[in-house]
């Protein structure tokens, strides 16, 4: 089963590599991964879409937690959450196709962000299945290039909060 896992990591040199190394070293699957800033400067959020049975997902979450630079790991599969993805899709233009593409773009509430005589680029944002649908419908027109951002996601209603600072004395 597909799981979206949200990981807060220290914005440290190498923190991302460590997560990627863990996934490849343990043979876990990454369907998509995105990383970006959060409301706190030293913390980044990684959103990882992975796949596996319950035992594998349990291990993914534990192994992520075990990394020193990860602060919080949440498997969003058990929560109400919002998922969004952005896609840039460049489509070749043929005689009369521009109008049709524009219509499809409107249906998906996308916008045209670049246009030449030969091609146009559409930006679509939404839940990943909406992007999939847009891609399906646009495919017959000839997709020349596509870039998808990977999923970003947040729990609904409440935000992930950073643990309160406590001092460890040894």
């Amino acid at each position: 089963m597909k799981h979206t896992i949200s990981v807060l990591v220290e914005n440290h040199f190498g923190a991302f590599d460590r997560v990627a190394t863990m996934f490849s070293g343990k043979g876990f699957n990454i369907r998509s991964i995105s990383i970006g800033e959060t409301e706190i400067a030293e913390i980044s959020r990684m959103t990882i879409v992975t796949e596996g049975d319950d035992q594998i997902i349990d291990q993914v979450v534990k192994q992520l937690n075990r990394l020193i630079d990860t602060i919080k790991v949440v498997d969003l599969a058990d929560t109400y959450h919002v998922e969004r993805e952005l896609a840039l899709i460049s489509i070749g233009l043929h005689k009369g196709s521009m109008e049709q593409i524009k219509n499809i773009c409107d249906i998906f509430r996308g916008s045209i962000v670049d246009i030449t005589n030969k091609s146009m680029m559409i930006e679509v944002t939404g839940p990943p299945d909406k992007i999939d649908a847009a891609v399906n419908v646009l495919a017959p027109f000839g997709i020349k290039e596509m870039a998808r951002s990977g999923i970003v996601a947040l729990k609904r209603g409440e935000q992930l909060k950073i643990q309160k600072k406590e001092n460890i004395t040894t």
Partner: protein
Amino acid sequence: MKKSDNTLNGAEIFFECLKREKVEHIFGYPGGAVLKLYEHLHDVNFLQHILVRHEQGAVHAAEGYAKASGKTGVVLVTSGPGATNTVTGIADAYMDSVPVVIFTGQVPSHLIGNDAFQEADIVGITRPITKHSFLVRDVKELALTIRKAFYIASTGRPGPVLVDLPKDVIASKCEFVYPEDVEIRGYKPTYKGHTNQIKKVAEVIAAAKRPLLYVGGGVIMSGGSQELALFARENKLPVAMTLQGLGAFPGTDDLSLGMLGMHGTYWANRAVDNCDVLVSLGARFDDRVTGKVETFAKNAYKIHVDIDPTCIDKNVVVDLPVVGDVKHIIAEIASEMPNPPETGEWLEQINEWREECPLVYEDNDGRLRTEFVIEKIFQKTKGEAVVVTDVGQHQMWTAQYYKYNNPRSNLTSGGLGTMGFSIPAAIGASFAVKDRPIISISGDGGFQMNIQELITAAAYKVPVKFIIINNSFLGMVRQWQELFHAEKFSFTDLSASNPDFVKVGEAFGIESYSTDNPKEVDSLLDKAFSVNDRAILLEFKVVKADMVFPMVPSGGSISDMMVKRLNPKRMI
């Protein structure tokens, strides 16, 4: 060293930090990128630097030191080849959860990424085999980084931490402020076990008919051996140990079943197979222990106590997990026990298995066998020595025949199975342990894998007894070839190509002896035990084609256990 305004260079800060971490020994090898550190080391007198002869040896020595003492081992090497030479040692420490901090030199910051002379991305190379690592980018971060490195290496489930030190960072200056506290918000090991779960564990054990404690190296690392001994004895619970767990509970105790798993005792494995409650304490259900996981302790209610949550449900799904420090949890379980379980019949049954299939070897044909040598060593040291084995048949025979009575006295490479571990690890241990003999046992193959460290032993006059079990073969591989690979003894016969080990020892300045006669074993060992101010080497030439039994084939079940050679005519 200190300037009045407390502005220090990186090298001075480095040693100030080591002093505060109470580092007394460091195993290292110099080179261009760490020259500044060695410049200052020259005048440092609070610690001893031990010059090894290969950086892999430095890491194994630090491991031996750490395993024997419980303190964190420290390694200092240069960039590039110095750093890459540590890789096997680091992987070894990672697999066996040994607290080691490895300091590597690095090319100056502005050259990183330029393929500069002796540049290697050691942080990248070791990422999957370190608990954590740091590249120090500014001298202002140095003190805090070192503090964190020691803290991470030694707490929770211990492991190796690498700190990469660019040359310019060591040379630049800043005000030295020692960070008394470390705060790592992403790293908070759980020490205290869940109270209700601990109660439940006690109830389940108390109600058990055939309980078994399955004890791993975690008990030793947490310092929980005494708690374990009290708990097991008070409740008459039999104890089977993993390779790393040997020594956690006295091997001479009636309740000890010795080692379980692939080359475990028949009775320990039968006990695993038949127990109704299996209590894993600081062990990780490694495949060398479980064999086929579906049949491992198949009817048992499984309890798993470990400090590392990732160990739980990783290989075997358990019924009752408890995450926390195993030492404290054992004590708490013990105090929660409503009554001891009725284990009389169960212990009798185990004793029947002991008699049914004891550890035996041929000892009346006048030829020398490993088991005999190990038994002699055991008798002479009464299980009180620190025994450091290499990897192979001799390692398994030692695990079977040497009954360790103390924790931190069985040092061996279990997880990675690194040949070449024994010589340097024994040297490292000798800097930590002064009151008990240190015996290094290697095969003829593995002895040659870090043989250069013999000179380290000679130079520092460490009183290690180096024992070579020479069967003229890469014996363990030969055993698999005979059993599973159509007797194609491909590249495992060393009889025509082994060096003269006595001459080797002497060339390194170590008094050396050799024998193939069982009658001479006693006198040679007595000789070795009478020497306490320097190293000594004994080569025992044993029969060639012996095999270690019992054996549960890789991925097999207890029912597949082989207790003796199928084709006795191969016994040459």
